[in-house]
């Protein structure tokens, strides 16, 4: 990460923010690269918005410092930072037209009027709002407002654009469309985007890297694939996507593998582990629902974990089916299966006795 030829655009060094007795952001360090679309993902109250507001300059860190493009931003006021923020509420000036809203930042920069007009027109064309330039925000739809807010925050050509829940106020259909448009604009401009969101789908589809925040701390940083397939801890595993968490007792270790006894599933499980020697006693493993194969016959092939159970619930979604399978000891495992073959009849039905199996390599060992 610390490549001297490509220093990160944003360096957050041990930043802490305390309000009276609440620690909103707790010793966070992050590096965000130039041109990246970086997402900060977390539930409400995890400190992600506070971190964003510190990047924008609206909050002053209690400790630590923030560098943008090598310059210490800790004491730089928001109006002097090379950073713009797209507000969750959009915060469009209601007394100004679309054009005036977008031009505002350039006017404050003191740019000559013809240049302002040119850049505003260019920006409005990019977000496809040219014909609405003369409208007031109250006459715009939600999606149009969102685009004005985006244009207004991009028109100053910031080094870093911060987006606070950029899609949260849009309805589902529009959200999917806008998601791709946003990623497209980011790609075109090459501006570094930092998106704050509570929506894991949004983070997964938009971002090149994700930082998962929990209780003011960074729980994990990685690509969407890393965060999903190799969650660092229980919180990340549970927050991003669906997952089955399984408690087990270590019964043996050999060749970079751990043997577990999972009482809740009444099964013996195997999980890969680089350094199995240090682990003992009770551990937690996890497996994603889509990694599990469900069948009525005993599965063939080695290197698989196998659990027996009964189908208690079945959800048919057309493209896939979700099963909730109860093991003999009572624990429930979620399984999702793609319906690859065209058939009106399901091969597995309610109350069927089934085998659940998954590769040893799909089993995630969670240490914390």
């Amino acid at each position, binding site marked *: 990460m610390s490549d001297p030829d490509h220093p990160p655009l944003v360096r957050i060094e041990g930043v802490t923010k305390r309000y009276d007795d609440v620690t909103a952001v707790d010793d966070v360090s992050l590096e965000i690269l130039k041109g990246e679309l970086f997402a900060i993902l977390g539930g409400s109250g995890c400190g992600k918005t506070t971190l964003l507001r510190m990047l924008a300059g*609206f909050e002053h860190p209690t400790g630590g410092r923030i560098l943008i493009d090598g310059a210490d931003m800790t004491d730089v006021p*928001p*109006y002097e930072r090379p950073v*713009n923020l797209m507000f969750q509420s959009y*915060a469009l*000036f209601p007394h100004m037209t679309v054009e005036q809203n977008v031009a505002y930042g350039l006017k404050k*920069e003191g740019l000559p009027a013809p240049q302002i007009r040119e850049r505003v027109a260019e920006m409005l064309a990019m977000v496809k709002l040219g014909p609405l330039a003369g409208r007031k925000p109250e006459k715009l739809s939600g999606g149009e407002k969102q685009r004005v807010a985006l244009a207004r*925050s991009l028109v100053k050509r910031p080094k870093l654009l911060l987006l606070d829940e950029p899609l949260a106020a849009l309805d589902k259909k529009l959200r999917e469309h806008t998601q791709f448009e946003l990623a497209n604009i980011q790609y075109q401009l090459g501006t570094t985007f930092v998106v704050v969101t509570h929506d894991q789908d949004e983070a997964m589809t938009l971002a090149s890297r994700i930082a998962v925040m929990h209780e003011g701390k960074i729980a994990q940083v990685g690509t969407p694939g890393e965060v999903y397939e190799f969650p660092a801890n229980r919180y990340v595993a549970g927050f991003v996507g669906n997952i089955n968490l399984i408690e087990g007792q270590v019964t043996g270790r050999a060749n970079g593998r751990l043997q577990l006894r999972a009482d809740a599933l009444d099964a013996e499980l195997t999980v890969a582990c680089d350094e199995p020697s240090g682990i003992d006693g009770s551990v937690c493993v996890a497996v994603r629902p889509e990694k599990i194969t469900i069948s009525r016959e005993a599965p063939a092939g080695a290197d698989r974990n196998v659990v027996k159970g009964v189908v208690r619930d079945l959800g048919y979604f057309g493209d896939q089916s979700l099963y909730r399978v109860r093991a003999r000891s009572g624990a429930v495992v979620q399984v999702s299966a793609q319906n690859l073959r065209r058939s009106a009849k399901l091969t597995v039905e309610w109350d069927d006795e089934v085998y659940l199996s998954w590769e040893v390599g799909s089993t995630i060992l969670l240490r914390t």
Partner: protein
Amino acid sequence: MSEAKDGHDDRSLLWLCRAVKLPYFWLLLFFLMPFLIILKISVAEPIVAQPPFTPLLEWGAQGFEGLRITLSNYAFLFQDGYYGIIYLSSLKMAAIGTVLCLLLGYPMAYFIARQPPGRRHMLLLAVILPFWISFLLRVYAWIGLLNNRGIINEFLLWTGIIDAPLQMLYNDFAVYLGIVYSYLPFMILPLYANLERLNLDLLDAAADLGARRWQAFVDVTLPLSVPGIIGGCLLVFIPAVGEFTIPALLGGADTLMIGRVLWDEFFVNRDWPVASAVSVVLLLLLIAPIMWFQRLQTREHEAAR
């Protein structure tokens, strides 16, 4: 409708109230009727009698003989330059008083609106607290403060800052002070209501786009508070133009305000028709800003919806 026919008393009363629109009834009774009486007197001639003006309807031996209307009172107002000067002077004093209220009230309303909610309500209570004491008493109290042997002068003399009492009473200064003191809450309340609603994200957005705090105030807060400014100014200006108590108690002999002229015409000259004409003209002068205020309010209501 059917309930009204059934004759349930309270129900039919409710229906009646709805039908005649109680607010209009209220206006009719307490605004339009008195105005029509004043209008009637303003077109009569003064006579030495009880009441001291000629009746509108002429009744002769054959019964109704016709209307008796004269516009001479109005003609008198326009011929005598004195009234014109007083109208102008009243408008000027009310305008200056309004501007002073705005200059003082805006920062106060702004300050209150930026406090945490609990303290906001305390401060608002403090703003309206003077209303618990009679307006007349409060204006009287200023005499005690301002006169040559009043508390302020005594204190200044005692400290040695001045060696002769300052003339602070019975002049325009005292009248402005009285107007600002009495009408300040009417300026603060609508401004507060407006400023309190301001979305603070807008100020953050302005700062984010490169505006310093004062620029954000000029570009965002101020234009968005214009409805509050207009509302507050009209609430102060309209009653201040016709103010009687303040110029009568605190003003000097040369303080020209229409309220005092009205008083003099009614009670000193006992010329009710001219006095009525004076107040009708005053109403006509104020009707334009009142209607503007009304339109503004309906527009705000629509915008709020």
